[in-house]
């Protein structure tokens, strides 16, 4: 040993492993404009596809005349349903067990629906040609209200389902009904509600919105007729599943299809589904033998692909006079639009909505969800959320507030006395989940202390007195939330997408000179996988994260996985990565034993090396071992050093957090100002604190948008009123609040490194925090429930309806 020998602490720091706020490797390219997104792909002879879309929400397609369009120089093809029908591709299966028109087959069911696909030599000619396609429509009555859709005399929307009384999720009781999904104990819940001392009842609406990543959806499909191979580059959050679906739909053998997700400009659930544009681009490439690009514009994106939420949640919650919750009942009317294209694990048509007992020990509960067809776009995606968890968290956190009003209690205290206690984990919820771990009281106390909750309430009371005395027109709202998520779908025994189990994977190959490449079944859309997964591997195998390349998204090279959404990458692929690293280490131990001429059992792992127990000066680093794996003939051991792991998680993980928003509200203008936003997250083991903080800032900003103004709104005849970024609210740097982040750390007991996932927590937690702040400001004047988004107009109306405008 000499002064140049790094200390153990230095060796740990050099790895840049778990817990390191390592700077992101992706950023070097992105900051120089050298990302490679799908619209950056340019190929010789590439054609451009674009859609003729329906201006009507419900109409019969009487005729389509594309002669003038076809005659335009540069137009190569115009595809309609009639062209796709012989290939049986005019309809396609959805992820939810329904089917969806690829191109209008006889009628259109929502505004913006794809009617014809124009293929031209450049995007301007395609745009011109769209205008030349003449479509004759016969308007039909429009249904945009899911309750009206279930009226006995409501128009029949899905004529293709006429007389079919059973869907993918059981019986349909009406022509516009999709399913009723139920769980929990209905009779016992009713009994508990009937016997309760206090019952609070409320309808909580979580409005329709849209993930709206800055990059829209798109693809380039290229059919190489010489070697029979189809390559599709696209904005896919689940490239391997897309390959399987493409094979099943097209009949092309799966080994002849290569799907590549290049850099993705944000996903947030928008890029999980399979859209008509992908199918049409593939067909057009097969027909023309040329690469075909299709990229949505922003209006297409907001109108046609992947709405989120739209849940009408009718709740009843009961408690003792002291505030101990005794039962929860919830019925949801879920507006799924024209086709049931929700992106959920197959067996869960309402996703994981039944996490709606939240952070509370509720002895008995029931949930029933009715899915309904309307003349709106299909979708129902998990917008930065693990399959309806956001709806569930909003529902329970609003019901808690309403119950607090009913009881005349402080809402923070009501939460505290009902939290699941630390000693109750693993906890069986009344709706069937096993919460793996949690320490809610500690997180809650830390959060309340951090914002000086008592002081805030005192200030609020003072403000109220001043308001009543006419000395101010601004109210103060304190929005509380304690959320519990369920992420990391999921165990193959009950989680699948189109039959594919929701495992995930990692393959690690160590190079002779001690660097490595890892490939995973997931795909980053900004989460920084190339940075953070290398950190997991670094800590497992003792090579610096800087020496590890992480690749995802190419189905020809990456192991099969189910992709990135629902905060599943860290819980599932992250676990596969850690276990794959351990396989490498196990082989490395055998090699080290041979090199050091000791028995394997005489070695111990220390940061980046195997050393002889009791003689740490005798060691072989992972770098030494890697070299030996390729240049030594070791008896009984294959050359090389690589491994692959597929991980089927035994359970979900249950991240949680405590969020508090403090908001000033001007009762005369309806304007608000977020004075403070505190976010405490517990995502278990923290891989990269810098990345976690970034996720919290971004997710909370999405939540801020949703709560305070963002919506997909329709008029009564199904026109989308929020089809551009003029009307669809995305906050700028100017109105976005400042965030304070904090954490506790309760590792998952079943995850190999104890990590739980964090990407979606801030969206799940912040929406109720912002919304509760608005409600809390008006609580003294009798407000119980006012639906989001709380834009200036709606807040102004609250004040007016409560008589505060004098």
């Amino acid at each position, binding site marked *: 040993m000499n002064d140049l020998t790094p200390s153990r602490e230095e060796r740990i720091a050099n790895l840049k492993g778990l817990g390191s706020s390592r700077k992101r490797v992706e950023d070097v390219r992105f900051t*120089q404009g050298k990302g490679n997104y799908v619209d*950056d792909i340019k190929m010789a002879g590439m054609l451009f596809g674009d859609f003729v879309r329906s201006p009507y929400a419900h109409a019969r397609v009487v005729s389509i005349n594309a002669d003038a369009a076809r005659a335009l120089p540069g137009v190569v093809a115009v595809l309609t349903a009639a062209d796709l029908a012989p290939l049986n591709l005019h309809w396609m299966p959805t992820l939810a067990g329904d089917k969806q028109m690829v191109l209008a087959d006889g009628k259109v069911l929502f505004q913006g629906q794809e009617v014809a696909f124009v293929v031209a030599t450049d995007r301007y000619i395609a745009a011109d040609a769209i205008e030349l396609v003449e479509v004759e429509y016969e308007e039909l009555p429009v249904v945009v209200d899911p309750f009206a859709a279930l009226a006995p005399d409501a128009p029949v929307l899905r004529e293709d389902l006429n007389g079919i009384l059973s869907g993918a999720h059981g019986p349909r009781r009406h022509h516009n009904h999709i399913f009723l999904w139920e769980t929990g104990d209905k009779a016992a819940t009713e009994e508990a509600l009937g016997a309760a001392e206090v019952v609070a009842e409320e309808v909580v609406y979580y409005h329709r919105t849209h993930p709206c990543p800055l990059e829209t959806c798109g693809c380039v499909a290229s059919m190489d007729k010489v070697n029979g191979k189809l390559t599709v580059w696209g904005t896919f959050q689940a490239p391997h599943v897309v390959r399987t679906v493409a094979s099943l739909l097209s009949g092309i053998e799966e080994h002849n299809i290569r799907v590549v997700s290049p850099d993705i400009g944000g996903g947030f659930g928008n890029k999980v589904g399979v859209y008509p544009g992908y199918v049409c681009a593939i067909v057009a490439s097969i027909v023309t033998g040329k690469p075909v690009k299709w990229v949505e514009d922003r209006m297409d994106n907001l109108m046609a692909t992947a709405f989120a939420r739209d849940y009408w949640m009718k709740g009843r919650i009961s408690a003792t006079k002291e505030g101990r919750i005794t039962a929860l009942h919830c019925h949801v009317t879920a507006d799924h639009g024209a086709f049931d294209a929700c992106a959920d694990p197959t067996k869960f048509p309402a996703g994981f909505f039944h996490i709606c007992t939240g952070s509370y020990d509720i002895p008995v509960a029931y949930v029933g969800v009715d899915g309904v067809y309307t003349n709106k776009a299909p979708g129902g995606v998990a917008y930065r959320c693990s399959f309806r968890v956001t709806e569930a968290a909003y529902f329970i956190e609003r019901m808690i507030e309403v119950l607090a009003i009913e009881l005349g209690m402080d809402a923070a205290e009501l939460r505290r006395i009902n939290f699941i206690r630390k000693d109750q984990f693993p906890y069986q919820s009344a709706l069937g989940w096993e919460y793996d771990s949690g320490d809610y009281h500690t997180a809650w106390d830390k959060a309340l202390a951090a914002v000086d909750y008592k002081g805030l309430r005192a200030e609020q009371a003072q403000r109220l007195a001043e308001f009543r005395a006419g000395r101010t027109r601004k109210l103060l709202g304190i929005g509380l939330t304690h959320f519990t998520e369920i992420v990391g779908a999921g165990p193959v025994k009950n989680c699948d997408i189109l039959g594919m189990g929701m495992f995930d994977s990692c393959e690690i190959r160590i190079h002779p000179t001690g660097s490595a490449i890892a490939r995973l079944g997931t795909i980053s859309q900004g989460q920084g996988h190339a940075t953070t997964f290398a950190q997991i591997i670094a800590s497992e195998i003792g090579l610096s994260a800087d020496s590890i390349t992480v690749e995802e998204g190419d189905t020809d090279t990456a192991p099969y996985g189910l992709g990135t959404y629902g905060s599943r990458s860290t819980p599932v692929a992250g676990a596969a990565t850690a276990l794959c690293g351990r396989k490498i280490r196990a082989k490395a131990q055998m090699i080290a034993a041979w090199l050091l001429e000791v028995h394997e059992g005489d070695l111990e792992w220390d940061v980046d090396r195997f050393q002889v127990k009791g003689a740490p000066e005798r060691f072989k680093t992972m770098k030494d071992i890697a070299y030996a794996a390729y240049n030594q003939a070791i008896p009984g051991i294959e050359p090389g050093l690589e491994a692959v792991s597929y991980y089927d998680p035994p359970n979900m993980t249950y991240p949680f957090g405590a969020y508090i928003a403090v908001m000033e509200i001007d009762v005369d203008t309806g304007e608000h100002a977020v004075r403070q936003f505190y976010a405490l997250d517990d995502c278990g083991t923290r891989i990269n604190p810098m990345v976690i903080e970034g996720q919290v800032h971004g997710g909370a900003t999405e939540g801020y948008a949703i709560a305070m103004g963002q919506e997909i709104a329709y008029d009564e005849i199904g026109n989308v009123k929020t089809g551009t970024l003029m009307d669809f609210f995305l906050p700028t740097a100017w109105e976005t609040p400042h965030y304070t982040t904090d954490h506790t750390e309760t590792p998952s007991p079943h995850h190999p490194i104890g990590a739980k996932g964090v990407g979606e927590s801030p969206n799940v937690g912040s929406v109720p925090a912002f919304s509760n702040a608005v409600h809390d400001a008006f609580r003294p004047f009798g407000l119980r429930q006012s639906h989001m988004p709380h834009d200036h107009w709606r807040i102004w109306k609250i004040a007016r309806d409560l008589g505060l405008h004098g």
Partner: protein
Amino acid sequence: MGKKMQISLTVNGEVHYILAEPRELLIHTLRERLGLTGPHIGCETSHCGACTVDMNGRSVKACTVFVAQADGAEITTIEGLGSPDGLHVLQRTFREHHGLQCGYCTPGMITRAHRLLIENPNPTEEEVRFGMAGNLCRCTGYQNIVKAILAAASEMNAKEAAE
């Protein structure tokens, strides 16, 4: 299809002569003719700023500028701000302060920040937030973008003071 026009424009110091329909959007000229795919398309309505480039000393949204309007213009895109061997201060501070995630808004964001710091070399946080309000980001919540820009400003000012 309309009649084509001869247009000359200087992009990142290099002069280009092109024949284009006047309706062609500058963003398509840059991305598809000149292969400068740093600026992105996010909305086509001037709201998101992913296509921001510098034109004649002002930030413009290249998705709503016709190439005909750019005839004779001096244009700088993200590709012209720095090079792999000599990154612009903002390119470094955005990474240092985690001012990006998916990277899609980043070229426009940095190009706008570059112009903002010329317009106002010593901005307050509030001035940065206001000056960047034409550029949307869906990932970061802006907090670290603001931090990165303020850090770049103080670094550039310190360097200037030293010189």
